[in-house]
């Protein structure tokens, strides 16, 4: 843990905090300028049966009669102190609503990611060592196949085969081990495709490097070559990709939860959007942003620890400036 790494980490964490705040503000503005007034649409809906007095109470409690900027400020300072406000629909704290469904989604998303990584590793290993005559080419086609099939289709196919045909899990009981397992598979397959694409390209690149030949010349085994030599340098760009798939995992979770009838963030979002429950929407979107930023922050922080060659920002020697002249191609050719 040297000084430049701590500087680097502090800088990255600062940037992450700014991104989270900006995303909160952005969501708030988008939600408030969205067409449709939640008060008219929801509270005054005769089916809900609120009296005019109750409506005024809710408006006052939520502070909806104040100017937007004041509301933003109030909401932002609440958010920073960890208070996500009250649901307009049920009047329960938003944090409680989220806490109820978050574990289920987290389980699904992390197991989906685990499935994706394992699948990508298996495909990656196969592309390096499976002989051509045993279908290496076919294996290399898997990622594009996985990418081109939407995950709800995969989910439905899995339910059909393993739920209905083989009876491995009861479709109704969404929380059983097998139901969760197949939901994770449905979620993980498209994600694995993105990871595998990058992993395969990097494995191919690393396998062509001299050091791979030299290491084999040292008489090491295939699996040692893969896990001890090729995997680590190939995994470095994959770290970035995995961080970027968090969005995919979150979005995919919502769809998969619907297909598998699971309660989770997905069902919460669905309910809040249809009822325009603004505090809940705001909180979920902000949480998604936080999750995304935190995971990418972790990736940034891990990267220099994995690759000893990474030069941290601030220590890179600036290249002499070159202009727009005819001889730029030669200028770049000169190593400095």
């Amino acid at each position, binding site marked *: 843990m040297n000084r430049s790494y701590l500087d680097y980490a502090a800088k990255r964490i600062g940037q992450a905090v700014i991104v989270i705040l900006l995303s909160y503000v952005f969501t708030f503005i988008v939600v408030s300028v969205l067409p449709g007034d939640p008060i008219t649409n929801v509270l005054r809906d005769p089916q809900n049966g609120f009296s005019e007095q109750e409506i005024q109470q809710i408006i006052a409690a939520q502070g909806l009669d104040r100017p937007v900027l004041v509301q933003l400020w109030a909401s932002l300072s609440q958010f920073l102190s960890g208070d996500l406000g009250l649901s307009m629909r049920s009047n329960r704290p938003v944090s409680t609503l989220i806490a109820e469904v978050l574990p289920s989604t987290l389980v699904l998303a992390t197991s989906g990611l685990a499935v994706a990584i394992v699948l990508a590793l298996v495909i990656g290993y196969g592309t390096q060592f499976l002989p*051509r005559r045993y279908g290496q080419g076919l294996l290399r086609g898997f990622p594009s196949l996985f990418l081109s099939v939407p995950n709800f289709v995969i989910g439905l196919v899995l339910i059909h085969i393993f739920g209905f045909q083989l009876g491995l899990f009861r479709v109704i009981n969404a929380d059983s081990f097998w139901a969760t397992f197949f939901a994770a598979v449905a979620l993980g397959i498209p994600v694995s495709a993105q990871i595998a694409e990058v992993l395969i390209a990097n494995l191919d690149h690393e396998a062509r490097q*001299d050091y791979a*030949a030299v290491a084999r*010349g040292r008489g*090491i085994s295939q699996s040692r070559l893969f896990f001890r*030599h090729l995997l680590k340098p190939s995994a470095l760009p994959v770290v970035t990709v995995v961080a970027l798939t968090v969005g995919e995992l979150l979005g995919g979770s919502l769809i998969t939860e619907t297909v598998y009838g699971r309660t989770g963030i997905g069902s919460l979002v669905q309910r809040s959007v249809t009822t325009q429950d603004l505090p809940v929407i705001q909180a979920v979107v902000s949480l998604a942003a936080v999750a995304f930023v935190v995971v990418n922050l972790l990736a940034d922080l891990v990267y220099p620890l994995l690759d000893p*060659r990474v030069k941290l920002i601030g220590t890179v*020697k600036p290249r002499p400036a070159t202009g727009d002249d005819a001889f730029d191609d*030669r200028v770049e050719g000169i190593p*400095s």
Partner: protein
Amino acid sequence: MASQDKLTQRPDTLSALLTPPLLKVDGLSVAYGRRTVVDDVGFDLARGRSLALIGESGSGKSTIAKAVLRLLPDGAHADGRIAFNGQDILKQSERHFRTLRGRAIGFVPQDPANALNPVRAIGAQAQEAAALTDEPNKALRKALILDTFAEVGLDNPGRVYDSYPHQLSGGMLQRVLIGLAVLPRPALLVADEPTSALDVTIQKRILDLLSRLQHDLDISLLLITHDLAIASERADKLVVLKDGTVQEAGRTQDVFSAPSSAYARKLHADVPALNPDRYAALRDPGFHRLDGREGTATKIAVEGVSKTFSVDGKSLTAVDRISFSVAAGTTHALVGESGSGKTTTIRLLLGLDEPDAGRITVSGETISGSDRGSQRAVWRHLQLVYQNPFTSLDPTWSVEQLVREPLDRYRIGTVAERRAQVREALANVGLGDHLLQRKPGALSGGQRQRVAIARTLVLRPDVIVLDEPTSALDVSVQADIVEVLLSLQANLGLTYVFVSHDLALVRQLAHTVSVMRKGRIVEHGSVTDIFDTPRQPYTRALLDSIPAGVHASQTATHKAANLRQEIFA
């Protein structure tokens, strides 16, 4: 001479009679799909002896090395017989052969910078080699590794063990790799161009190390090289390859001093180290300009120029108060190892960097890196030919576009005039009009470098900076390019600033030389003075590192013979 021949011949014939060769390659052919890259190659290597495979790119020499190690890529098909200790390597299962790799057959690769996993510590990789010794104790294995590191001349084995590859220099890495290769005490060491990526003085030390280990540990050495001089200095037997077939094979002295095939003769004639005066007729008129007999002016004057960069907060003096001048129509060579300041000097000369102190004038105009207008003016006088023609030409452009581009940028002449100038420039470098529409991908390395030279010629400059213009090319192609450059100088009166680490080449074509070390010019003078009577030890070290071919090994044999006579007398 005759008695000496007998002395050197006898061990060969004796060992051949008594023991079968360690490595016997017989009728080896390797094909990638339908393309045959190695065709019916055969040779054998006795225990403890050395053999060099010599050839240019595409000769199949590296493919043969990979076949011996069974590291051929997917899709390559090898036929014939490679017998190691009497067992046919090609017929063995991968599982069985793996026990030989490393243990019995060691491998030293070409480019040490890429030959170790960049994200793992050297110690972890060394442990893999040490595991081949069947020593179960990890601490003992580490001791063995440190011992080997010391043996190959690494100063601080413990520090090397804990380092990552990017923290060591190329020479140190090559020592590490040689150490790892010899650590399990293999019977055969395959070295694929082990020094071509290294500085000259390091090259010699690494080759000395390989020779020493070969003798001390009684290892057979299969040396793959493009350099006839190195091969004949280091190997007992030579096999000359071209296009995958053996052109000539035999004892080094025979092949070297009396090559029978036309190709081997040409190869011999093209090696600069062996033919210092090959281009004398083209070069020598330049000396008259130098001593003022033709009354020519100074073309380039560099006076007390310094340049300091800051790297990681520390300041690094890349060039330190250097001065030299170049007479018009002559060639000035800057020689030195990497980090000596050669590249910075030419960047300053081209106005790409601004000197911190001192003054550079070309044809009386002062070069300043900060003023773009004057820089453009200077660039019409001063052009650069870059090292590697495989990367310096845009692959999507045609030859005509590439050569015409400078004219377009400087808006010189009408379209028809530009076209005529492009043809003239191409004719000057010996390229015909039929190549005008070709893309670089459809040209050979030599043709590409000619295009790069033609591109500099269209602006009719009077100075051309040549940054290692032949180092990416094969020797025979290199000889062509040198000839083109010298005839251009003779015909157009060009002044060259020639940057190279190849002193043999410098001797062939330069008139004056500056020897650079750590940013300073340690010695300068005419090429004959520097090469015949070097005053600085550094210059002497550089000159000593020029491989001298078989003469050196002859004297070694001679010494050994004398020693033997003394002892047994």
